[in-house]
């Protein structure tokens, strides 16, 4: 009697179609490509160099920590490092030195991710940790903005208040590489929403929280929403699975908190921009939100 070599594995024996971490990360990267292309088109070669430097540095740092160099096909890993690098680059001023961006990526991966336990265990958004580190080390370079196309030094519309709403929406204003075009960011986020990767609650309540707070300060709410990094933050950073709440109610509170804090920091703080610290602060509340806002189990009283 022939005894074939049977495969013995745990149940379940079927798997949902084409879903793995790398594909999901690549989808998010794909969603960010229009805004990336726009940034390079607006701000030129240095912006492209910053993006490449940040992405490569992030991938290499993680591969080095995980000792994944022996197999070249594994250097890219699950794609989460590349995404962190890209998000960081898009949040940087276009005129910054690519070397700074690379250093920021190393900090993002080391302090934002692997030292907190690696993907899934990190409490804070890695790209924003990298950005926060850079703000401390290079405060001037991190707040020097240039105009699109001509590269002349200019203030961000958050400070100058000089920009038409349509320019803010399309992105032809001074600002970070990937944050200026609300239109392209929205298109990318819509794609992710349709693919089921991000939910609507966090971006919606982030914007709502910032609008209400801006109104309370008698500031122009639309300038707050479309100027600076609020859109990229609300759509792509606050919605990071690892560092945002998993329950719908938690997402609502998290989103409102991010929006309120962003405008409070912008209006009351010394920094022109508040998205980074608003999201990082709200990241710290996630374990608590997850703990107390759970839905009930079947039959739980």
């Amino acid at each position, binding site marked *: 009697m022939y005894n074939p070599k*049977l495969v013995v594995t745990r149940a379940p*024996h079927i798997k949902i179609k084409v879903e793995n971490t790398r594909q999901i990360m690549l989808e998010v990267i794909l969603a960010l490509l229009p805004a990336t292309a726009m940034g390079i088109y607006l701000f030129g070669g240095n912006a492209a160099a910053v993006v490449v430097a940040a992405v490569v540095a992030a991938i290499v740092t993680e591969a080095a920590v995980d000792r994944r160099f022996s197999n070249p096909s594994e250097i890219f890993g699950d794609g989460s490092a590349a995404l962190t690098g890209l998000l960081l680059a898009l949040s940087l001023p276009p005129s910054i030195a690519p070397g700074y961006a690379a250093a920021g990526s190393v900090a993002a991966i080391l302090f934002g991710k692997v030292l907190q336990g690696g993907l899934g265990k990190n409490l804070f958004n890695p790209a924003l940790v990298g950005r926060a580190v850079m703000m401390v080390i290079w405060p001037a370079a991190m707040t020097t903005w240039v105009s699109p196309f001509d590269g002349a030094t200019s203030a961000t519309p958050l400070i100058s208040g000089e920009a038409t709403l349509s320019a803010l929406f399309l992105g032809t204003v001074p600002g970070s590489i990937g944050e200026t075009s609300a239109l392209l960011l929205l298109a990318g986020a819509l794609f992710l929403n349709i693919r089921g990767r991000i939910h609507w609650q966090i971006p919606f309540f982030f914007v709502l929280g910032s609008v209400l707070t801006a109104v309370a300060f008698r500031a122009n709410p639309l300038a707050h929403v479309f100027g600076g990094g609020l859109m990229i933050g609300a759509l792509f950073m606050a919605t990071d699975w690892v560092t945002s709440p998993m329950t719908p109610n938690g997402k609502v509170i998290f989103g409102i908190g991010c929006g309120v804090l962003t405008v409070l920091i912008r209006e009351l703080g010394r920094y022109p921009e508040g998205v980074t610290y608003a999201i990082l602060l709200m990241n710290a509340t996630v374990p608590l939100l997850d703990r107390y806002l759970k839905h009930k189990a079947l039959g739980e009283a």
Partner: protein
Amino acid sequence: MPVSTSEVKRRAKTFQRGIDLPHNKHYTDGKAVERLPLPPFVVVPLRQHAGETVEPTVKPGDHVSAGDVVGDLDDRWCSAVHASVTGVVSEVEPRPFGDGTMVPSVVIRTTEQSREAPAFAERAGWQDLDQQTILGILKDFGIVGMAGAGFPTHINLAVRSKIPMLIVNGAECEPFLTSDHRTMIERTDAVIGGAEIIMRCIGADRCVFGVETNKPDAIEVLRDKTRNNPAMEVVPVAVKYPQGYKKTLLRAITGKDPPLGGRSSDVGCIVRNASTTAAIYEAVALGKPLYERVITVSGPGSVERCGNYLVPVGTTIRYVLESIGVRAEDLDGYKIIRGGPMTGLAVDTLDAPVVKPTTGILVMPPSAIQPQHEWINPCIRCSACVNHCPVGLYPNEISQFVEAGTPEAAEGLHIRECCECAICSYVCPNYRPVTHLVMEGKAMLRQRSR
């Protein structure tokens, strides 16, 4: 008035969360049950139920007829085991069960090749038996849950107070499987008769047949045959996994949930699987023990003669496959599943037997086998498992507590309520064995509480 299929689907009741699976029932749902030629021998395990292994009551050399008791134990939690062919006992010894363990089994060489089912005489006065008599018959005739768990039915039905409602579970929500479906169509009278017996046994005045809408022919024939019985109703339920779990079916049909740690009887219901219900009828009314059953043999296009087959309990998987033209020599690198693709067991040997709770045998070719890592990837907190868990648990957090070696921390997250439907592993984008970790946590807790 006939109800159109689309109307049935729109009205179908269901539960929260869960998931749509490719159900792959088209391979076999139109195929009538066929009796396979009797195997040359059967290996009848002495443990086919959730409980203690029973003692053999025969020895090598004994002649037995199909339906004779070969194993029993004077223990409330045990269910008798019967000879499934007529022949001579050749061995009573541990045999591979398929899960890596050996289970004491009675091996019977078939001597009588009759393909006809032995005739059993109708039990006189079976319509008027009282509860205790019915429970005694169920235990002695080896009736256990036939949908996977193998829980002894005489324990389920031993209710002290009247239970108002019986739900006959015809959801059959696992992909590929169609044995309940064919049973409901081809043995409708047995299913309905079994339901009447259970109703009398538990004192129910109402019976609902819950059938997924992908079995419109079963819904129709059950409706047709219960039309004149005001106590019986057929309720179409949505095609969603795991609609056939008793608590999700209960929720769909009654809108009620038993309390945590509770049973369906706490909300006045008993849920029984359709094939088991038919077996109850055959045991009580016809005097036929549970020694053969219908199994679905299928796979993703991998079995040419896929279908629904009636086989004696104890038939080896090897025999089932070879008798429909699947050669053992061709199965290197294949996975053979006993049960459904979500909760079934990947057997380690073709010599594993079909047992009472075996719903089917699936042949998964290498192209359909999912890679499984030796290591455990981290949770990336996407919460897909949370969004699909039919019981409303947080499998992501539970699995991480188990990984950390602290299953006690998962008790507060109601780890014991997990129904092991395996959706969490099915959806996890990081290929974590979430279900396996949760099951491991439950086992650790059981061990520590001893």
